[in-house]
Structures are given as structure tokens and as C-alpha cells.
């Protein structure tokens, strides 16, 4: 087992829970010992840097400082989310490149009793670690249920292969790492020309017509290539293509149905893990038909054990706020 400092990022706890669950399920066979950075904070996504530079980098800097404190011999921070990975990598890179930024971030961190020496940690994405540290041979040796007959479109999006400060990928626009991994799992992998094109990022929320066009291109291409599903490594890409596909279809009067799941979910299936612990059923664009094609029955909706335990009896009814105590003055004011 190799120890990595693990930065999950906000999405892994919310919209990309399926990614988190499936990653945790395959850590042991992959030999990944993930130690979560204690009390990490949000990386700022693509929002904070567009408002204010020093605070945005100080926000990221706190995570790097906490990770370095906790390192104890480990040097690698592993991030599964593309935006988190890039933000952490970028802060480390630019703090080395610009003494002024480094100084400012460290002055800010010092106010909170922290400091970070840029270059003291390596920031890496999960796929990079699987390909280069663990290796495809080790992955193959764990495959007990090859995904034979499943036709997948590998989709990386932007922020993992680019800008690539450490030159870790085979290509910035057509990297083959995800393809090779999915082939090692036994899947039929199409040579997806849009594999690093943009999903629209935050534009689904602020400029929907711009975003829907980008989603359409991806979904349409995957459909033309007769992919059963797209497979991604980015929470934002998954969310945009999965969650906004219905709205995109309405926008263009189209009727695409292209499921998109996380690559760790497929690793889990190929490793023979129970589909119930791999986050299946959390997708909004149903992936069941695609998976049943190769004989996997996955749940319709994930129900976690703790939800079941916490389920209320019918007598209690729905959790509603307590009735408002209306006082006569309020009623007067309403009139």
C-alpha cells in the first residue's frame, strides 16, 4: 500500500458521491492508502480566481499547508476532481514561478499560523497515479469480471490533461491513458475524438445556451460512435452531461440518452465489487440499460444504510418545520 494525502474536494461529498464511493471501494485492490487531509477547505473552483487573486490562492494555500503539515513522509497529494487537482497544482506551480504571489500567500497563511513552501508536495490526479504508480498490469491482475461487450467513450474533459505543468500526459488533446485503463478492464473503447473537449463548466448555470451547445456536441458524438455510455473522471463533466442532458434535449428538440459514469465505478465492476457499493443509481441519465447489456443489474436508486436506519415511522410524518406561532400583530402587518 502506498500512502497518499487525499484531497476529496466538495463535489465528492455531494454531486459526485458515486465517484467517492466507488473510489473507496477500489482503493484496497489498487493498493492505495488514502489519508484525507484534515479539515481541508474548498479549492475555490473556477469562481474565486475570477474575483480576487491573493484570497483565491490563499484559500488553496491553506489546503497545501495543511497537507504539508500532515505529510509525514508522503509527498503526493492525490485529487480525484479535475478542478481541485488543477487549482492545487496551479497554486503550487505559480507560487514557484512568482515570488510575489508566494510571498503574499504566505503572509496571509501566517495570519492563520500556517505556511507552505511551494514545490514541497506533488499534486497529482487519481488517473495519473493509477497509470504511473500502480500500473495497468496491477489493474489487470485484479480484473475478475471483464467488461466485455460494453462500448465506452472515454471522456476526460479539460482540466486534467491541460495545462499539465508536470508533463504527465501522453498528449494534451488526445491522451490515451484513460483509453488504456478502460481497455485493461475489458471494455470496448472507442477512439473518442472529443475526449478532452469542454462540457461547458459553470456555463450551465450562467450561460446555458453556450453550455448546451457544448454538451450537445459531446453527447451527439458519443451517440454517433454508438457508445453505450461515456466514462469520465471529472465531477463537473459528469454533472453537466448527466444532469443537464434533459434540459439540453429540450433546448435543441433532440432525444439523446447517453449515460455518463465515473471510471472508478467501472473499475469496481471489473474487480467484482457489488454494484450496490459503487454509487450506481445516483446518475440522472439512467445507466441501467447499458449495464444490463453486459449482465450487470444495478440499483435504480441508491439507498444508503444510514438512510434506512434513520427512516421515520409513518406516524411521525414528513419532517416539517414547527408550525409558525402567529401573533396578532403579524396578522395586522400582513393586511
Amino acid at each position, binding site marked *: 500500500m502506498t500512502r497518499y494525502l487525499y484531497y476529496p474536494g466538495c463535489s465528492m461529498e455531494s*454531486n459526485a458521491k458515486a465517484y467517492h464511493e466507488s473510489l473507496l471501494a477500489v482503493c484496497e485492490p489498487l493498493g492505495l492508502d488514502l489519508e484525507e487531509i484534515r479539515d481541508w477547505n474548498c479549492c475555490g473552483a473556477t469562481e474565486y480566481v475570477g474575483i*480576487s487573486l491573493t484570497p483565491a490562492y490563499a484559500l488553496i494555500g491553506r489546503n497545501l499547508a495543511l497537507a504539508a503539515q500532515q505529510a509525514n513522509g508522503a509527498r503526493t497529494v492525490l485529487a480525484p476532481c479535475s478542478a481541485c487537482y488543477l487549482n492545487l497544482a496551479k497554486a503550487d506551480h505559480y507560487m514557484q514561478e512568482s515570488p510575489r504571489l508566494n510571498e503574499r500567500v504566505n503572509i496571509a497563511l501566517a495570519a*492563520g499560523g500556517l505556511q507552505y513552501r511551494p514545490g514541497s508536495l506533488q499534486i497529482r490526479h487519481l488517473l495519473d497515479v493509477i497509470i504511473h504508480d500502480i500500473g495497468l498490469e496491477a489493474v489487470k491482475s485484479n480484473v475478475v469480471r471483464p467488461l466485455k461487450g460494453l462500448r465506452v467513450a472515454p471522456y476526460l474533459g479539460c482540466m486534467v490533461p491541460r495545462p499539465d505543468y508536470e508533463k504527465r500526459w501522453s498528449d494534451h488533446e488526445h491522451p490515451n491513458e484513460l483509453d488504456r485503463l478502460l481497455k485493461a478492464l475489458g471494455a470496448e473503447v472507442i477512439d473518442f475524438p472529443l475526449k478532452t473537449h469542454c462540457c461547458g463548466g459553470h456555463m450551465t448555470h450562467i450561460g446555458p445556451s453556450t453550455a448546451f451547445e457544448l454538451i450537445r456536441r459531446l453527447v451527439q458524438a458519443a451517440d454517433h460512435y454508438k457508445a453505450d455510455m461515456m466514462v469520465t473522471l471529472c465531477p463537473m463533466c459528469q454533472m453537466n452531461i448527466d444532469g443537464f442532458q434533459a434540459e439540453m434535449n429540450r433546448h435543441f428538440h433532440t432525444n439523446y440518452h447517453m449515460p455518463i459514469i465515473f471510471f472508478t465505478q467501472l473499475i469496481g465492476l471489473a474487480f467484482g465489487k457489488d454494484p450496490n457499493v459503487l454509487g450506481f443509481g445516483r446518475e440522472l441519465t439512467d445507466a441501467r440499460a447499458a449495464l444490463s447489456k453486459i449482465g450487470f443489474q444495478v440499483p435504480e436508486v441508491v439507498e444508503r444504510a444510514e438512510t434506512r436506519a434513520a427512516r421515520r415511522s409513518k406516524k411521525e410524518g414528513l419532517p416539517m418545520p414547527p408550525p409558525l406561532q402567529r401573533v396578532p400583530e403579524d396578522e395586522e402587518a400582513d393586511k
Partner: protein
Amino acid sequence: MTTHTAASPPDPNNPNLRFLEEVSLATAGVSRLEMCIQCGTCGGSCPSAADMDHTPRMLFAMIRAGMREEALRSNTPWICVSCYHCVVRCPQDVHIADVMYTLKSMAIRAKLYRESTAPDFARTFVDNIESYGRSYEFGLATRHYLKHFPLRMPGIAPMGLGMLTKGRMDIKPRRIKGIGQLKTILARAKELEGVA
């Protein structure tokens, strides 16, 4: 746009004379914006250029020409999707995406953006981080869609409901333990940035 006739010597007191330098300095790392050779690879590589007022190349020429107000009013940085296609293709290695972030923050400070959807979204996102230390999607989404896209609500409601029922969105925010420490750090950073 005004047409400039015969060359009059540049006014040394014109604050826009050094606009290129100003943008470059305000960018993370070494922006290399001065190295732009106007080849247009950026605009040609951009997936959302069709929706932009100016391609990145044109915008950079405007910055160099000291057209502060026009550059900060451009929707281009707000349409940029941070895909980094231009960044890896730029023959001069200009940090284009980071320059776009700089232009957004300058436009916000100068109150020169044209419509408020994108700046508001970023502001709400950041307010949540500053209060909790984590992003808070439910609060962000409800506020944002009610304010800016009330007509999208019926279309997007099934998705929001799906996110809730499939356990992909928490109704309550999560707060980090060291929120006090984070606030102190951010307050100091804002002082240094001159935005406190």
C-alpha cells in the same frame, strides 16, 4: 469606437498607457501577455468563441492599445470556459485563461461588466466558501436560479429534485472546523490585495 487621426504623441499622464502592464502584473504567475504575437490560435481553438464579443487575440490587442473600458466591458472573459485549449496551443505560452480571470476581477472592481449573472454566481459561490469553508450547492443553486433564471425553474426542477433524492445535494451546508482560521487568512489576503 472613435477613429484616431494623425499620430498625436501619447499623453504620458494617460492612465491607460500602462494597461497591458497592469493586467499582466495582476495575473497569477508570469502572464507572458506581452509576448502575444496576434496569431489568433487562441480564438481558433476556442469552443465558445462564437458567443464572445471579441476573440482573445482581439481582446489582447485592445489591452495593448490601452482600451481599458472596452476591454473590461467585453463579455469575452465571462464566456471563457477555462478549457485551456488555447493555453496549450499558444506558441508564445501566454497564460490566457489566467488573464481572463484577471479581467473578470478587474471588471467587477470597476463595475464594468454588462450583466450580473456571472459575477453574481461567482460572488455567491465565494460568499458560501467564506462562510463555511466548503461550497454549498443547494444554497447557491436555489438563490441563483430564482434570481437569474426563474423561467428555467420548471425545466430544471426535476434535475434539482433528482439531485436531492439521489443523495447528490445536501440541504444544509457543511462547515469546516477551522473556519475562524480560514477567515483570518482570507481577511489578510484581501488586505494585501487591497480589496478588504
